[in-house]
């Protein structure tokens, strides 16, 4: 009678078990990827830090601003393109949706100044297509490992779009990991550059002139900035995935415990019931025998 229910529970347990295997494997993959990215970022971080500070020093010693004025922040922009960077794969908790929601919020606050979205990552692309947003371009399948060259060509592409003059500001919204447990969303202005006109007390020799130099190193600067952003967002994605998968594995373990307890209880219940049935019937048989004997 009760065998059907027992079988069902057993089946459920085995299905949970195989899901658990999967989530655990994915957690492990995420961990391995994370290690790789962290190693990359560690090497790269020093470079980026040096480069940014050098770039600031060069840009603050520019005298003739007209030469490079296209790239320099002057007034509040009126045509903003938002670059949204998120993952190509799901199963990472709310990572992708958090980024999309943040970009929608940003679109709302910009109002008329908003121009279009530039999307990186198929998840965002699908969702924005569904919501009917204005997408200028989308890049998918860049996820597995961000290469420096990819970042360079992406930033060159953005500079080219900016150079056409339709838009006057590029913002990047991407995932950022505050710690391995807390993932947040960061909103950075990619172009134009804000120049800090702090008084610079060291007078440098320039070879060539500061304006010329700024133009020459601009692609390199934006390339390294882009690479940092890509790495940061990938790290955040893997962190989110690791956490989501860890939670899933733990939940599966708990479910399995619950179900096996239920299974054991049920089994014991049926055994007890059967034993009771057997003893009862034998008792009653005994009773019958004794009465016949008396007669």
């Amino acid at each position, binding site marked *: 009678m009760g065998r059907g229910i027992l079988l069902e529970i057993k089946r459920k347990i085995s299905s949970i078990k195989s899901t658990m295997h999967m989530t655990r494997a994915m957690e492990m993959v995420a961990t391995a990827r994370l290690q790789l990215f962290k190693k990359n970022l560690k*090497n*790269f971080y*020093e*470079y980026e830090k*040096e*480069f940014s500070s*050098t770039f600031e*020093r*060069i840009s603050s010693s520019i005298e003739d601003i007209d030469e490079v004025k296209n790239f320099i922040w002057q007034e509040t922009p009126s045509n903003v393109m938002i670059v949204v960077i998120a993952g190509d794969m799901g199963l990472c908790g709310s990572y992708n949706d958090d980024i999309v929601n943040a970009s929608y919020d940003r679109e709302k606050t910009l109002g008329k100044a908003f121009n279009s979205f530039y999307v990186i990552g198929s998840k965002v692309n699908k969702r924005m297509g569904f919501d009917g947003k204005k997408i200028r371009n989308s890049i998918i399948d860049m996820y597995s490992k961000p290469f*420096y060259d990819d970042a360079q060509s992406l930033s060159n592409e953005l500079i080219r779009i900016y150079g056409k003059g339709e838009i006057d500001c590029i913002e990047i919204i991407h995932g950022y990991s505050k710690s391995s447990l807390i993932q947040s969303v960061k909103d950075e202005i990619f172009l134009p550059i804000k120049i800090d006109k702090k008084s610079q007390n*060291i*007078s*440098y*020799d*320039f*070879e*060539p002139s*500061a304006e*010329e*130099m700024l133009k*020459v*190193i601009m692609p*390199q600067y934006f*390339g*390294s900035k882009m*690479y940092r952003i890509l790495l940061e967002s990938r790290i955040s994605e893997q962190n989110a995935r690791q956490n989501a998968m860890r939670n899933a594995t733990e939940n599966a373990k708990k479910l399995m415990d619950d179900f096996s307890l239920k299974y054991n209880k049920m089994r014991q219940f049926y055994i007890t019931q059967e034993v009771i049935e057997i003893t009862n019937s034998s008792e009653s048989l005994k009773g019958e025998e004794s009465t016949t004997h008396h007669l």
Partner: protein
Amino acid sequence: MFRLRIITPEKVAFDKMVNFIEFKTINGAMGTLQNRLPLFVALDIAEFEIEQENGKISFFAVHGGIGEFFNNVFTVLSDAAERPEDIDVERAKRSLERARVDIEEVEEIRRKELEMKIQRALIRLKISQKKER
């Protein structure tokens, strides 16, 4: 003597005390000794010659970037910096040939990219011939 640091996105390629360095800016060749005035240079894709503390001369292929001299530290920030022994000569030759074929049939926008590629390959080949002295 001053300190020379060559930093690329992958690693810190060089960090030692040196006597003299010679490099090529986009305007021409240049060299520097210690106690120079603060300096910024835009480097070309070219060779980078270093005379180390012990008088040994070594070479790098530096692929563009910036150099900054300040307070007796020369910092080079470049996309890539390779020693002669790290260069894959066959690969450089192949990429040179490919770029030379491609450049014949490419439109104006991509030409600059290919020219850079050719220059990179050429400088790699040149540096790979050099030996430390």
